[in-house]
């Protein structure tokens, strides 16, 4: 039974990224304007010291110690558990009280970090390579490692729509609550850096050899990042008992397709325009109600002009404050929607706006300039968070003060 008007609340958040191993340390880095980008240390690749990335500053052994998972599993599962566990503990919901609980996760390449290690031996001899390195190759297998460790069983699934994956998992989770299928959903996504994605993006020639500069006239491309971000979504009934825990409400969401090109965005941002417009329509808000946009803002030439043009078409002449936090965290692909949902929830709770780091020359084609400094005591009522991906998959979420 679907109730359109049923509210869905964010009752817990958890994040791990290049700028911090938990929510508090990420917030501190955002306030101190400290980016997490640097040389590659975790991957054995020829691109070391050439292509900068945003690595989480814990190795697999440290992540395993912090999460209770074994260090030999995919780093994507380790990162996912790190953030999902923080979110779960933050919400403080127990499994005891007969709540129907789900885990809706997202990632782009599953256990690829282990698969690529396996392949070196496997290609030489089909009977070589450690099987346990491919046991969790599937995207869903990575999700289940985390779901099992969290003790979540009622509903578990995984979405993979490239860079919009975890925005989609969050709003699918919210819909499961609105349909009265679940009471509580841990939703978001995780992705570890892999040689597969690093080389893949490198062939597309969209990786910046310097620190990325989203929405800058002279932007050169994106920096890949890794991490995980989860929110704990709860129904009105659950929220009523934990009012002091609530961060915000997920008031709007929408998914649209650009239908332009497998990897490039259309010049006028047809997909991103439709996603933002759809999310506004569902939330019942006007463009002037939005306090802040957490941009997709990858720093590629193509994304930023396409997204910027879509924002101009939709918001002109009143532009909310906006910034891309990817200048801090890098582009974390399947995790980005989850990480940025956490940042959006924190912006509302703490009334803060994040800076768009390293913005030197604003884009000439756009009539607005993203925020350049961290701001406190701003009334942040509604945050629009954008996540756009390969395959034209565009999703927008709106978080609102409750």
């Amino acid at each position, binding site marked *: 039974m679907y109730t359109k008007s049923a509210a869905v609340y964010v009752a817990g958040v958890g994040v791990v990224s290049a700028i911090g191993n938990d929510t508090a340390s990420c917030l501190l880095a955002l306030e101190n304007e400290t980016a997490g980008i640097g040389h590659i240390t975790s991957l054995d690749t020829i691109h070391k010291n050439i292509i900068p990335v945003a690595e989480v500053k814990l190795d697999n052994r440290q992540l395993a110690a912090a999460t209770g998972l074994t260090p030999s599993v995919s780093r994507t599962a380790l990162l996912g558990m790190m953030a999902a566990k923080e979110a779960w503990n933050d919400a403080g919901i127990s499994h005891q009280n007969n709540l129907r609980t789900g885990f809706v996760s997202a990632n782009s390449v599953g256990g690829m970090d282990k698969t690529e290690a396996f392949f070196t031996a496997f290609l030489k001899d089909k009977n070589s390579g450690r099987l346990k390195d491919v046991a969790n190759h599937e995207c869903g297998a990575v999700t289940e490692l985390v779901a099992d460790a969290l003790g979540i069983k009622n*509903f578990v699934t995984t979405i*993979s*729509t490239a860079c919009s994956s975890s925005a989609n998992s969050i709003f699918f989770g919210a819909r499961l609550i609105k349909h009265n299928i679940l009471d509580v959903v841990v939703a978001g996504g995780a992705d570890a850096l892999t040689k597969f994605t690093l080389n893949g993006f490198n062939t597309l020639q969209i990786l910046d050899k310097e620190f990325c500069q989203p929405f800058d006239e002279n932007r050169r491309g994106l920096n890949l990042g890794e991490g995980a971000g989860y929110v704990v979504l709860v129904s009105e009934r659950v929220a009523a008992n934990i009012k002091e825990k609530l961060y915000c409400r997920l008031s709007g969401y929408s998914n649209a397709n650009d239908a332009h090109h497998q990897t490039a965005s259309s010049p006028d941002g047809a997909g991103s325009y439709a996603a933002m417009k759809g999310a506004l329509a569902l939330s019942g808000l006007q463009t002037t109600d939005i306090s802040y946009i957490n941009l997709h803002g990858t720093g590629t030439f193509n994304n930023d002009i396409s997204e910027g043009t879509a924002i101009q078409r939709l918001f002109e002449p009143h532009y909310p404050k906006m910034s891309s936090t990817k200048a801090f965290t890098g582009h974390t692909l399947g995790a980005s929607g989850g990480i940025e949902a956490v940042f959006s929830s924190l912006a509302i709770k703490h009334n803060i706006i994040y800076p768009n780091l390293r913005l030197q020359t604003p884009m000439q084609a756009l009539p607005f300039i993203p925020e350049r400094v961290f701001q406190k005591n701003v009334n942040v009522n509604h945050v629009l968070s954008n996540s756009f991906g*390969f395959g034209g998959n565009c999703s927008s979420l709106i978080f609102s003060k409750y």
Partner: protein
Amino acid sequence: MKTFIRATGNISPQKTFGSEPGASLLQELVIQKGNRLRCAEPDYLKYIDAKFIRRMSRIIKMGTAAAMECLHEAGIKSPDAIVMGTAYGCLEDTGLFLKKMVEQNEEMLTPTAFIQSTHNTIGAQIALLLQCHNYNNTFVHRGLSFESALLDAIMLLEENAATTVLTGAADEITDYSYAILSRFGLYKKGSIANTDLYNTFSRGTLAGEGAAFFLLSNQASAKDYATLDALYTFYKPAGAKEIEEQIAGFLKDQHITAADIDIVITGRNGDTKGDTVYSELEKTVFEKNTVINYKHLCGEYPTSTAFALWLAASVIKEGSLPAVLEKSATSKIKHLLIYNHYQNIHHSLMLVTAC
């Protein structure tokens, strides 16, 4: 809420695709030897623009062609939403990029295989071909990838966010995945005919693959095959007792009993251990039911329930079981229940009913 199955498109190892009007369901059984069933691929030029075909891998072609055939049958140019399920994604492109990355030591790589390795490629290619800007999602959850996509589609229809949803699943077997999954002991050792799948009494099953799409709607039409009345999944049940309870609970929620089910389609796959789950149920919940199996037709793969849903919908449309299944219904076929488990981890139930 009833979900109407208006049209289907199914590329499988059997002759299930683009059959002539009036041709009866599964007229003959395609018998393949070995332990790996391959899809019978159509002439893609009928379904996809030639300039797109050149760049597409096999699974992308199969998925896209199945989707196009489904839309063609429905008489719809473009749906209100596209929702895909795939457990493995585009394995051929993934394997190709990995191979080159390793063998060329990360040098001189080209982007095509990487671009097309993304799990959402099929859904995206369908949107691109149709110029469809609507909702587009891809679920990648192992043995519940198709069920998750179906749930999303049903929810979209209930929300009135869509009146037509193109939903389906695609998974392929490649030489790499076959070699790796064989080492995990998934498949039977040595060669058998698919027709002997249930008579070997040994470990393992047959590798399978397929791409099947459905046009689902919240509105009835004259073309409808059947309705999908309910979908339910459960994860890692504690044992036979919980499985029984879950199935009984599902039937109760639907206000029917096992006696009301005319045919049960189970996911029996020839693996002695996994099949005990079905054997137990045939002694209890399904004791008095006519039970048929489908995995000798398409092999085992995580999204094989898309084939099962196609079979269920087609049997209802046809009004009888095809002769190749060697069973007949004792009554007019009204309710058909699909029950499958994938490695006893992912379990799903679908209730399909005549309109």
